[in-house]
């Protein structure tokens, strides 16, 4: 399994995403924002960070990067794509996922260990979880509040496209406690919390996040 991990200027969690891929026995392939090239990978991770400083709007500039044009095309053809935190914001800006992420309702950056409920275990990235399972992974973001209009929210609920929901106190004002969503096809997933920081209880709160990368392994093997 070869998994591309994109680096934009300002990307921070690319090293972690690469490590997570390796922990799931995959080969992590670094992808550069300026290249129109996915290097023949089986899947792509758009990792967290502050691409281009995120000074305009999170993900607003990164979305236009040459590599993203390739990601959009591949995603539309069914390639598994995972956006974590800033990656989620970028996928939303690129219209691969609906809605947008806005400033946390309390206006502070929040870094904490966050319980999530797995609402949909049939996406390319969540098959290893039990439906309804609760997992503990880090959340660390200043603009993590998920927003969408009522129609979109209804569509997401009706089509079972909410992948993760926050358990307990809503950390950022997300509508419907949404922590992560998927596209209609289930190959593109975006979430604000960081599964790649929860692959080893030594350096994270748990290894609950590893399931996402192992799920991908299953998906790719099956394909």
């Amino acid at each position, binding site marked *: 399994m070869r998994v591309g991990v994109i680096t934009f*200027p*300002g990307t*921070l*969690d690319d*090293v*972690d995403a690469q*490590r997570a891929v390796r922990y799931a026995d995959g080969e992590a392939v670094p992808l550069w924002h300026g290249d129109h090239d996915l290097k023949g990978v089986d899947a792509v991770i758009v990792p967290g*960070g*502050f691409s*281009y*400083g*995120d*000074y305009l709007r999170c993900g607003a500039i990164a979305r236009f990067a040459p590599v993203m044009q390739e990601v959009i095309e591949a995603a539309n053809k069914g390639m598994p794509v995972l956006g974590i935190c800033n990656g989620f914001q970028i996928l939303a800006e690129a219209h691969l996922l609906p809605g947008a992420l806005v400033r946390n309702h309390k206006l*502070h*950056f*929040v*870094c*904490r260990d966050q319980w999530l409920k797995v609402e949909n275990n049939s996406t390319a990235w969540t098959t290893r979880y039990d439906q309804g399972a609760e997992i503990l992974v*880090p959340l*660390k973001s*200043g603009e993590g509040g998920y927003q969408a209009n009522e129609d979109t929210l209804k569509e997401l609920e009706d089509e079972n496209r909410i992948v993760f929901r926050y358990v307990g106190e809503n950390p950022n004002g997300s509508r419907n406690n949404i922590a992560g969503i998927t596209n209609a096809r289930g190959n593109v997933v975006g979430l604000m919390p*960081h599964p*790649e*920081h929860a*692959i080893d209880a*030594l*350096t*994270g709160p748990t290894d609950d996040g590893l399931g996402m990368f192992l799920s991908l392994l299953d998906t790719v093997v099956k394909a």
Partner: protein
Amino acid sequence: MSNVDTVKNAEATPDQEQPYKELGLKDDEYARIKEILGRRPTDAELAMYSVMWSEHCSYKSSKVHLKYFGETTTDEMRSKMLAGIGENAGVVDIGDGWAVTFKVESHNHPSYVEPYQGAATGVGGIVRDILAMGARPLAVMDPLRFGKPDAEDTKRVVLGIVAGVGGYGNCLGLPNIGGEVVFDESYQGNPLVNALCVGAMKVEDLHLAHASGAGNKVILYGARTGLDGIGGVSVLASETFDDSAGKRKKLPSVQVGDPFTEKVLIECSLELFEKGIVVGIQDLGGAGLSCATSELASAGDGGMHVWLERVPLRATGMTPAEILSSESQERMCAVVEPHNVDAFMEVCRKWDVIATEIGEVTEGDRLVITYHDEVVVDVPPRTVAHEGPVYDRPIQRPADQDELQANTPDSLPRPANDELLELIKTQAASPNLASKRWVTQQYDRYVRGGTVLAQPSDGGMIRIGEETHRGVALSTDCNGRYTKLDPYEGAKLALAEAYRNVSTTGATPVAVTNCLNFGSPEDPAVMWQFEQAVKGLADGCAELGIPVTGGNVSFYNQTGSTAILPTPVVGVLGVIDDVRRRIPTGIGAEAGETLLLLGE
């Protein structure tokens, strides 16, 4: 161009008055500059000497005392030390071929003026110091001191500083693995923002700041140079102060940080190091190019020629003195062999980093700076960078020190048994003892995936070698109230606390850094506190057998004539050969644990 003060002009007008006093130079200091140069300095030279000979850059009041660190460090203590006091940051060999560098620095005053940006640029500055050693910055810590918790201004300061530390550090992708939050009245109007950064490199990649080899190129890279931080130097510009539109140039009162530019600068620099195309490197911090060029030249074996008009500017109409003194953030200066310049530029292009060849290492022993072909600086670099004035300031134990010490807890009423519960509740709820989660929750502690311990642990710990599991632990500590009571013992206690906090993680303490925050050195009582604290810290280090590898002195922390509590923040670095054997803080992880009290 006509009103640029050149060396030729300075020779022709020896009696021209210069605003050296406004720039903070004393009569005898100005006289010494004239003696060194054999003429009056040009405006640009005066700007350089005045910033480089300031307390902040020259350590002129502390030097005589800091020597004691060196005198008390034995060869055995030094055995793991690859670089020590005098370099950008101390470096220790931690085994497995890894070297670790760490340092703590203050950004106190700017953080009072504009808390967010002051704290943010404080983090940015210390991170560049670590980068300049050739290391990848790996984590930060932030020992903070604020005024009274219920004072209105404290809110502004706390909110801004915490957001600034977080905003910059989070955006750089550096986990925050610890720090302190202390409230005390004495910091009202004078908060302390100390920032620590730790980084690692392979031993053979250690870069020291020097410019050797005639013909080598000097490259400035990173952000453009603006009018930031040149407040004092503006007095030099009285004649050229009007820009073309005839308006007075506006000077920014605050430096704004750009963490994205710094993040890119870090990755770009690390790629340059990895390719082996950097001979010497220096970050641009306080005193900007004045500092970087004179220090690089002074530490090398030749001279240097700089073409100042090549420096990419952000503001119009900047004078040579202003360009030299600008403290614009997010810049670095590298020395590169001529045949590597193209490769250097290529890496900078990849990262979209502006890079400009601004100078060259020369045969001679002078630092010569020209501006459109006219010589505006011609000085022996050592006299700027390393041979500044030294003061042995008067020291006087405060008259009320005995009284202070005599006022012991013995005179306090004992709480009755039924008051104890209330007392514990009050204490637990007091801002100095309460949970610091409101602060630490704003800091990313996970990024890079190497954080083994962070809040609420006694010491932070990161993994350095992913294959070998080797790691380091760090803690910073200081109790200003103890130090006020007895500066010698107080500094020792700060060291002992940091040492214990590192030990309890399972790591072995190996080295010490410090940030000595004090009031005015012109106050003999403050100088006494300082001298005592340095002695205490040095003697403590000798007893424990670990060296001070670097640090920072911050004087003039006072409001009016009232100094802050003497606050020698001590940072201890420990090594652990396998982070999987770390000891987490807290009890109750497993049933049947036994609680033991060690010591008296």
